[in-house]
């Protein structure tokens, strides 16, 4: 059973609008979360992170929100650009050294010009 879920396999958004990617987790021991972006034929690259002591973290056009009681986090991209088209993975960790991350299945975002 997957501990980290991304229930939307794909999402299409118009350029300039907001993209919202969702992630749910089942293990309340997770206390650190990351988002990775992956282009075809490349490895995933780190995008943004949030620890459980926060409910929001912002970096430019990217904002991650964490709702611990709902075990839910979301990634907002505003405004969306065609270059944001990629697969986005949510990942969660609970170990003290940040070694073990559990990844979700990914959401493919397409930003349409």
């Amino acid at each position, binding site marked *: 059973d997957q501990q980290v879920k991304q229930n939307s396999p794909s999402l299409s958004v118009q350029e300039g609008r907001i993209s919202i990617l969702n992630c749910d987790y089942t293990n309340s021991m997770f206390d650190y979360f990351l988002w*990775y972006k992956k282009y075809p034929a490349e*490895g995933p690259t780190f995008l943004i992170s949030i620890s459980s002591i926060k409910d929001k973290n912002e970096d430019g056009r990217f904002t991650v929100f964490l709702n611990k009681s709902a075990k839910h986090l979301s990634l907002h991209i505003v405004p969306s650009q065609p270059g944001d088209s990629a697969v986005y993975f949510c990942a969660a960790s609970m170990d003290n050294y*940040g070694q073990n*991350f559990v990844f979700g299945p990914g959401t493919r975002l397409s930003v349409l010009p």
Partner: protein
Amino acid sequence: DVKVTQSSRYLVKRTGEKVFLECVQDMDHENMFWYRQDPGLGLRLIYFSYDVKMKEKGDIPEGYSVSREKKERFSLILESASTNQTSMYLCASSPLSGGAYNEQFFGPGTRLTVL
């Protein structure tokens, strides 16, 4: 510029063959990881290593082994390849943070097909 390289981008092997996937990082990271990525399943951890000659099983170690003889190099070995090991294999590395969390840096992946 940090770099994780993998020996092959594409590999085709036959059932029963022994397969070696090599990964090298130039960032002096203590931790190295091997994942496989399959559609609908995301990245699943096969093995990781936090030091030379040390290894820990991940979520799906069956049918795989690893070797870490040098800090910068982490090898994944398929002792007898099977068709269900056809997948994208991703190597990653991260520093040992001593309590803080760190992102992992990924290589470009090796797409392995077992016929």
